[in-house]
């Protein structure tokens, strides 16, 4: 069985963000990047399925700039067998386009199972897996906390509001990883050394025959307003006066 996992490169959320001059882009140049955490969980799940003897090949794919080979090497160091980088300027992509690119890649690779992070921690769109399932006409189980493969079916425990639900899907299928699915391993030093020799192919969007026509246009970013320091009031009267006259809450 072949598993495809997606690996997205996201900025370190602890970093200090800034915007470009006309506020149409987040300045990501100076930021430290890493693998989207949910994608690490997805890769880990694929590796565990391989370790159980269920899967025999894990292919990790990233759509992004050449810098993203670093994140793909992380997946290889964890235990993926090979990696594909689809080169693209991330700023020109939207969820629909990413799903369309992945759909073409799935045609080429013919995986039996796709495991993806449930969302990207930067924009939290939560759209690509669902769009991809729609385009491929494959069944999907999102927000997985457990997976089990038996008789060409995947059984997925899902976290839903107020409880859990269990889906059994025929393969091929798409599963998205939630936080509690597993705890991803840290790439070991021998793993990091081995990753350097694993195949990492690069292709372009044109190679896959996808037209670069994003449907979402970013108009503007706005930084959250700076939090102002609180004030200490002397008594209830002053509090009420401030709530009424300054904050206009009452």
């Amino acid at each position, binding site marked *: 069985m072949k598993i495809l996992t997606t690996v997205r490169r996201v900025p370190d959320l602890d970093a200090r963000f800034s915007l470009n001059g006309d506020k149409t882009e987040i300045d990501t140049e100076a930021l430290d990047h890493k693998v989207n955490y949910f994608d690490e969980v997805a890769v880990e799940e694929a590796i565990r399925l391989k370790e159980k003897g269920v899967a025999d090949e894990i292919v990790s794919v990233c759509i992004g700039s050449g810098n993203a080979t670093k994140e793909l090497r992380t997946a290889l160091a964890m235990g993926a067998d090979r990696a594909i980088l689809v080169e693209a300027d991330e700023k020109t992509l939207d969820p629909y386009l990413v799903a369309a690119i992945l759909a073409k890649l799935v045609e080429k690779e013919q995986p039996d199972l796709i495991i993806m992070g449930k969302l990207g921690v930067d924009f939290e769109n939560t759209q690509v897996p669902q769009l991809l399932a729609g385009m491929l006409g494959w069944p999907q189980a999102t927000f997985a906390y457990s997976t089990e493969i038996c008789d060409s079916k995947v059984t997925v425990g899902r976290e839903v509001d107020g409880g859990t639900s269990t889906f059994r899907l025929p393969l091929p299928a798409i599963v998205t990883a939630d936080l509690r699915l597993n705890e991803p391993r840290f790439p070991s*030093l021998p793993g*990091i050394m081995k990753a350097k020799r694993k195949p990492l192919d690069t292709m372009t969007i044109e190679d896959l025959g996808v037209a670069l026509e994003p449907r979402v246009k970013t108009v503007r970013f706005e930084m959250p307003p700076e939090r102002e320091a609180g004030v200490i009031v002397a008594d209830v009267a002053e509090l009420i006066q401030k709530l009424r006259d300054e904050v206009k809450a009452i």
Partner: protein
Amino acid sequence: MSGQVSIDELIGWDSLLTDDEKEVRRSVRRFVDSQCMPRITDAFEAGRFPEEVVAGIADLGLLGANLHGYGCAGVSSVAYGLACHELEACDSGLRSFVSVQTSLAMYAILTFGSEAQKQRWLPQMAAGKVIGCFGLTEPDHGSDPGSMATYCVKDGDHWLLNGSKMWITNAQSADISVVWARERGGAGRILGFLVEKGTEGFEAVGIPHKLSMKASFTGGLFLNDVRLPESSRMPEGVGLKAPLMCLNNARFGVAFGVVGAARDCLERAVAYSLERKQFGVPLASKQLIQAQLAEMLSDIAKASVLSVHYGRLKDQGKLKPHHVSLLKRNNCKIALDAARTARSILGANGITTDHHVIRHAVNLESTYTYEGTNEIHSLVLGEFLTGIKAY
């Protein structure tokens, strides 16, 4: 950290590192934060090495990481150094454990051992299943190991060992001890032996009452008519040169590592000085405090960049003993100074283990002394500069 940019960025050393070296650093940092930091204070206070992290350290491939073959990862010296740096940002005891296993015990077996010894011990040691220690120092012979009193005599096709070793890291937990002894009779050569735990006449005893390196095992080895077959002797380890080669190798990891402790102290001092208000303003807004932080940072930056440079020389086979002395002496000194400064900036809070800097400070007292004291390395450099031996 709560300042403007990370210390790594202020040092600006990332451009000197390869992607996989950065990956090693990230992986070890995450391991340390999630597995070691939550345990270290309790282990330190209890005076025990946190043995429960050994499996994780081995799974990461940190044991014997920069050695090649026999189940070792074979990473660059810089990658290994960065791993030491991250471990020591948690505690010098953790890094000492890895240093002794990797650069003293495993390195000795790899460099001086027979093929049978390498195959028997190294894969197990890389997997953390066999723990090693390295016995050179004695109760009466520290800086001058050449005058060691532990001796070995040939007894048929066996050897008889007598004497004692002191201040030995991992002594109590070691399954295999590398022991250096002087040959009685003949040429009086220094020879290296592998002594297994449980060998008759051999005993390892912990040293109590330590106030430094409390999260590391330190003990004494006692050899009383220990009878070993010739196959327990490392055939290529002959002369004082052999243990000194091991030490030189280990000093590199020590020097790279201690800067990690210094970095942790700086990060904690910055964070604390921003939070702590005196005279109505954060301590960080005082010029005297900023000057102290700047001093720590510039010491750390210089030590970090020099460590990487010497790591590259090491991999090119161009690192000379005087480079190692310079690096060990410099880095242990600036790390200890940084820890003391951080302790001062944290005021009374700085003396509690809750705030970690005092733990670093007392640990770094040991690093100042072991692997060649600060003074001995000064004398090495002095000899190189003047041609005059002043030991």
